[in-house]
């Protein structure tokens, strides 16, 4: 098993009456709620946590891209990742990822991801999401019905740019470049491991399988609800005649560890409820513009969209519900281990994106929970997939002689150093 410590970077100062006063945490959230002076402290707290996670032994540290969003302060995850290349040297840096349909031209993503891979010594995990409709359509103006087509074209350009050793012309429908010539190029060959975060679009499964990319199901609603979707994915894997390595799939799960189950509630309940009540308060039309989902997906999941069951659930959530329905895996190390084992085996996943910082959780609680997990839970879940022990197809392959910039005092004087040969 591989464990990645992931931070969504929520804004922790949303007011108590946020739900009542505002229709959405995303897209049209009043930006007067953001205070840049507090933001300075918030960014550094979150960056410190990601760096701390490496020292705890997590395999990866992760960030993602959201725009105009109260639960995600990373319009540019690449800036976050860049700072991590200077302050870590072992963990994978998982950028899950860049919403490539919104980049103009998409060669920018090939360039920046190459920079990150080089700066980190080959530790980049490159995520290519279609992007949520909030981000890609409403904030970045892409036409919903053409978003997937544009995504496919951007993907084609980026992969070709990484593979090609000569400049080439790219005559796309959405992008025309006479000279594509990716410079710098990534360390990892043929390219960094590629993760495709998906919600519930069934086309994404085939896309992942066509190219043997990792399929990452990023849900905030726990493994009990994620099961039917991942079952669908594994059925598709079998149908396509692919091997069933669990490393083909990743899942995101909110995790809270304390000494006892009761202590977990006392420490973390209010912060998880902050996350579910305020951070997921999204105006429904922003989540479902016509054309964003293909008709096949709309028909596949039409009823679940209609009932708005999810919105209803969010209205009066309690800690008991969060825990019972496994939106949150919380409790003593043993409780968490048991439930995560059920999650990992039930979903057949080799990668877990662990969400330890939730909502407005203060730094000390985040670290306490992460540390207990790293010391008492993670070691006991490591070897759940013995048959795939040496399957590194979906993980980083860093260079052995990479530098350790985090061990240098910033700006320290150096002796006369030549370029290495």
């Amino acid at each position, binding site marked *: 098993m591989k464990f990645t410590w992931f931070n969504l970077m929520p804004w922790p100062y949303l007011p108590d009456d946020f739900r009542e006063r505002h229709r959405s945490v995303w897209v049209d959230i009043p930006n007067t709620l953001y205070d840049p002076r507090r933001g300075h402290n918030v960014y550094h707290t979150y960056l410190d946590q990601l760096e701390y996670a490496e020292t705890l032994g997590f395999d990866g540290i992760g960030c993602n891209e959201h725009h105009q969003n109260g639960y995600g302060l990373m319009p540019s995850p690449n800036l976050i990742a860049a700072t991590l290349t200077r302050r870590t040297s072992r963990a994978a840096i998982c950028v899950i990822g860049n919403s490539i349909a919104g980049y103009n031209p998409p060669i920018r993503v090939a360039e920046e991801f190459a920079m990150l891979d080089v700066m980190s010594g080959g530790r980049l995990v490159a995520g290519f999401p279609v992007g949520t409709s909030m981000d890609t359509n*409403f904030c970045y*103006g892409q036409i919903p019905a053409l978003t997937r087509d544009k995504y496919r074209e951007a993907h084609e350009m980026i992969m070709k740019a990484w593979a090609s050793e000569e400049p080439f012309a790219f005559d796309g429908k959405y992008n025309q470049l006479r000279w594509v010539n990716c410079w710098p190029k990534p360390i990892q060959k043929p390219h960094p491991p590629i993760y495709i975060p998906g919600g519930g679009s069934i086309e994404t499964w085939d896309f992942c399988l066509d190219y043997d990319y990792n399929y990452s199901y990023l849900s905030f609603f726990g493994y009990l609800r994620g099961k039917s979707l991942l079952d669908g994915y594994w059925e598709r894997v079998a149908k396509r005649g692919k091997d069933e390595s669990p490393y083909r799939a990743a899942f995101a799960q909110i995790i809270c560890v304390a000494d006892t189950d009761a202590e977990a509630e006392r420490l973390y309940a209010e912060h998880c409820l902050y996350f579910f009540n305020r951070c997921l308060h999204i105006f429904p039309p922003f989540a479902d513009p*016509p054309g964003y989902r293909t*008709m096949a997906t709309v028909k596949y999941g*039409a*009823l679940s969209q209609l009932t708005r069951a999810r919105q209803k659930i969010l209205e009066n959530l309690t800690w008991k519900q969060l825990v019972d329905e496994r939106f949150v895996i919380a409790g003593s190390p043993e409780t968490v281990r048991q439930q995560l084992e059920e999650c990992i085996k039930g979903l057949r996943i080799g990668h877990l994106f662990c969400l330890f910082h939730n909502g407005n959780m203060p730094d000390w609680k985040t670290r306490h929970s992460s540390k207990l997990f790293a010391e008492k839970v993670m070691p006991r879940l490591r070897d759940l997939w013995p048959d795939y022990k040496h399957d590194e197809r979906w993980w980083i392959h860093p260079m052995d002689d990479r530098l350790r910039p985090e061990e240098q005092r910033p700006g320290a004087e150096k002796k006369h150093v030549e370029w290495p040969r």
Partner: protein
Amino acid sequence: MKWQVVDTAKGTRCRVLEAGSGAPVVFFHGAGGLLADNPFLDLLAQRHHVFAPEWPAYGESTGDELLEDMLDFALHGWDLVNALGLSQPHLIGHSMGGMIAAEMACLAPRDLSRLVLVGAAGLWLEDRPIPDIFAMLPHEIAEVLFVDPQRGAALLTGGADLSDMEALKDFYIVTQRRLAMAGKILFPIPNRRLSKRLYRLTADTLVLWGAQDRLIAPAYAAQWQALIPRARVQMIEGAGHMLPWEAPQAFADAVTNFLA
């Protein structure tokens, strides 16, 4: 009125409502499509040979994957006119249909007789931003489209009982499919730079507007008039954006007078 199906040279297959006799008139519907009842078409058919095609992805029309941008939509409009075998028809376009009809008239100004734009989309006034129909709850849509939202909601759903899950599901799928198509020329802002081509629109034009239009404010009528060489404006009191359905007689009278 009767339905017929035509195939265009490009490969779309479109359902067309047809009635009446006289000079040919083509009515292009907006993003909401034709509704279950379209009495204003019957009124127009008393004097004209009326054709009301459904855009691909609407009703039983197919080939939506072949149309991606404004030029595709406008050429498709002419492909339909050709497939119907019409010569110099009058064109009427409502809302998104008006945007397409105006574009058609800019591309081939000598191929139509007269043009009627009804609450037409296609322009953007910074001080009168058009509400985002792609970011609305169902009841909010009826509120911006109709003077009487309750009656409007009933018209939109064709009287279907949306508390029935199956009916709701069908309605949802149909709506998603239509608006996905409309979004190709309306999202995120319904402005595909038509304004810089309107100098070519030399057909006599009637700009017809519901005086209580809450979606595309009546101020837009003056902007169309300013940009089109030979246009006049007529406001219809008591009607909103769905003017043809809200005031069918007033609509038909205004159009019939103009085309006479």
